[in-house]
């Protein structure tokens, strides 16, 4: 009984929103906006639900005495939540949390990622010596070389003005657009499957 009702609701909502795209009648547009408002609120509430779920998972690890990091995670999570909830998002304590902890940590992780990617690029030819490895490393070197200025030399005219833009806008863009087309087709297919009831991501 539960599954047919959920399927019918999902199909009806999807069809109403889709019809509102193509038929500009006030009844459809109004209904569509109402449903979108619900979706926006539910998406925001989903963050809170996810936070609770994450806390439950790490709370179980804490009770099993298997991780100090889980304790720190749960403490930081709920402390930030209550500080922001109490002092407001634009308050000084909230901004301090962001500027002093979250932002430096994120930037540091990105810096470490740069080091890790460099090490991986160094090890790659030893692990998989082959044509595609050589192609990958050559492309990386050319893109970097065209993006920087060499001390005492400056930008290499041919690499910076011709080769790097060509690599970024022709081969890379072609591959990226191909991926985008595939994503678009997949999105259409997924929408149709949900509208037709053959795919039920909301059911267990």
């Amino acid at each position: 009984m539960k599954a047919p009702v959920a399927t019918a609701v999902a199909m009806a909502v999807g069809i109403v929103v889709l019809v509102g795209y193509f038929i500009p009648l006030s009844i459809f547009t109004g209904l569509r906006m109402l449903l979108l408002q619900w979706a926006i609120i539910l998406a925001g509430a989903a963050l809170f639900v996810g936070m609770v779920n994450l806390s439950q998972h790490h709370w179980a690890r804490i009770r099993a005495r298997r991780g100090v990091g889980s304790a720190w995670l749960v403490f930081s999570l709920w402390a930030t939540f209550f500080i922001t909830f109490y002092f407001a998002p634009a308050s000084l304590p909230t901004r301090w949390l962001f500027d002093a902890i979250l932002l430096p940590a994120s930037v540091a992780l990105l810096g470490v990622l740069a080091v890790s990617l460099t090490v991986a690029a160094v090890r790659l030819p030893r692990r998989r010596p082959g044509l595609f490895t050589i192609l990958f490393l050559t492309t990386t070197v050319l893109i970097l070389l065209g993006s920087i200025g060499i001390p005492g030399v400056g930008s290499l005219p041919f690499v910076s003005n011709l080769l790097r833009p060509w690599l970024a806008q022709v081969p890379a863009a072609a591959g990226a657009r191909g991926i985008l087309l595939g994503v678009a087709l997949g999105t259409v297919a997924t929408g149709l499957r949900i509208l037709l009831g053959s795919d039920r991501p909301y059911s267990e």
Partner: protein
Amino acid sequence: MCGKPNPADAEVCRYCHARLKPIQPGDLPQPKPTGALEAMLPPWIRELRAESEMEEETLPLPGEKTEADGSEGAFPEGESASPEPDADDPLAALWAEEEEDEDLPDWLKSLGTEEEASAVAALAEEQAAPSAGEPPEAAEPKGAAEEEESALPDWLAGEQSAAEAEEAVLPDWLAEGVVAEPAGEPAEAAAPKGAAEEEENALPDGSVGAYQPPLVEAPSESLSASPFVESEELAEALLGETPDWLQMLAPEEESASGEKSPAEEEVAQPLTEGELPSWLEALRPVAAATSVLATDEEEPVETQGPLAGLRGVIAPPTLTTLRPGKVGVLGGKLKLSDEEERQARILQDLIAESSRPLPPSSLPDKKEQKVLRWSVGLLMLLAAFLPFFLPFLRAPLPRRVLPAAIAAQRLIDDVPQGAPVLVAVDYSPAFSAEMEAAAAPLVTDLLAKHARIVAVSTQPTGPDLISHFFAALGSDYRESEHYLNLGYLSGGTAGLYAFARHPRLVFGYAAGHDRIWNTSFLSTIHTAADFSLVLVITEDPETARAWVEQVRPALGEHTPLLMVISTQAEPLVEPYYETASQQVGGIVTGIVGGLAYEAIRGRPLTAAAQAQWGAYSNIALMGLMIIAGAGLVNLVLGWRERRNAPTLPQDEDLDDEEA
């Protein structure tokens, strides 16, 4: 038949030539006047006739009835009289012979009967002697035939006697043919053979060319003979009947010595089931032939199918191998030669070798990895900080001309003074350095125009990012005075779609602002198209695509979409600018784009911007050199290791299989 009147003695209707008097059984054929056809006879028949007439004249038999006697009334009444031999009739000699036979003297007739009796007795002995395995009916037919003959009616008896008389006049060659004819029906020919030969021998030679009755009208005695009696005389008669031309075609060996060749003997011998001829056996494989030949006599013989008759071809299941409810081990011991056993052992060793774990030497060393990671990190830090102490290591500013940055500068210039501008701060905190460096010149220009900037973000950390971004621009720019922070827009693409068309429904209030839609920033805003410019700052290509797909259609023609993106998103976002529709009116890409925008404006770069560019270039250059140098060394080492390593599935192959 026609019904017309005819004379009483007429035999044939003179109108329609239909026969008026029916032919009764036992009527003798009436001679016809055929003298007119005498001239048409071939000369050899006429010579034969002349010779017979000469013999009749030179050797008259006793009691011979001559033409001079003129006694035509020798035939009993009721029978049609024999016609006089007509010189014009070619069959007249036949009738003459019959009359002569009937006119034989008694001593000659008795002689014939004695010979017939002895021949019948001899035939009875022959049939009785080999008939031990035959049914007793084979010896009966003669007596039964005689009884049947005695029981025949008069007209049929007369017909039979006439037939016997006709057979008696057959020539030698024809008499033998009569005996040989029923070769396919040996029973019919076996019984009368002896008597018939003696009778024929007793006949005069002048009977050649006489009338020959059809052979199917054989005496009833022959019909009663057993069909399974084999007679050597019959075979001799058959061989004797072989014409000369056929005898010439016979093999010389056979004709000379009478022995047959082996091949002929094989052909002559009938094949029995399970025995193959020598030529077919020679074609069989040796193993198969030996296995068949070496089979034990106790092994079963196949009784059906294409192997019928072969012995020991299929091993029968024994009771010991059949276990109900269990799958038994079929086949038993495998018979292998030494060479096959050696090869199987090699294969077994290879399989065991491949299942052993690889030596740990090919695995990367953790200590080596840690050293490499620390070395790369230190080199990059060194490259970032050295320019501060060594000015000659500072990277020169880029001089690239970016058309998308020029278009962005034009769009900023087109924004009217004090116009509402929507700024989307949609990047993650980790990219804040690059994004702020790229977007700062544009936002600074907008603030210089006193644009009513409304900031929004689809990132959960967006509100703090907005505050951090404007704080980084300078302490002069305060919230709710120079810009409005709407905060986090949830719902992803759906939230973007709704916000672009009905922003007042999506944002009922903002953090710290109860009546945001009554403020100067949003009082004139009902849809996204009411903004003079929409500036999106993001490092994620998916976020950029969402803004293009969900918001750009609601902006209309008068509200351009401008983007500040990270370098990593350039390949995916650039086509939105490159296309003719120009869904994105201008793009500023990364630090280089921000510097190019500043260069277009002709403003001198700040010390912070120069330091940031120098660190960025030097770190990238260091990474480039590490990747190129160490990567080349590792490429050579990797090739060498792979060449020396045993042929095992590599990681690429494993990945392909997993995929």
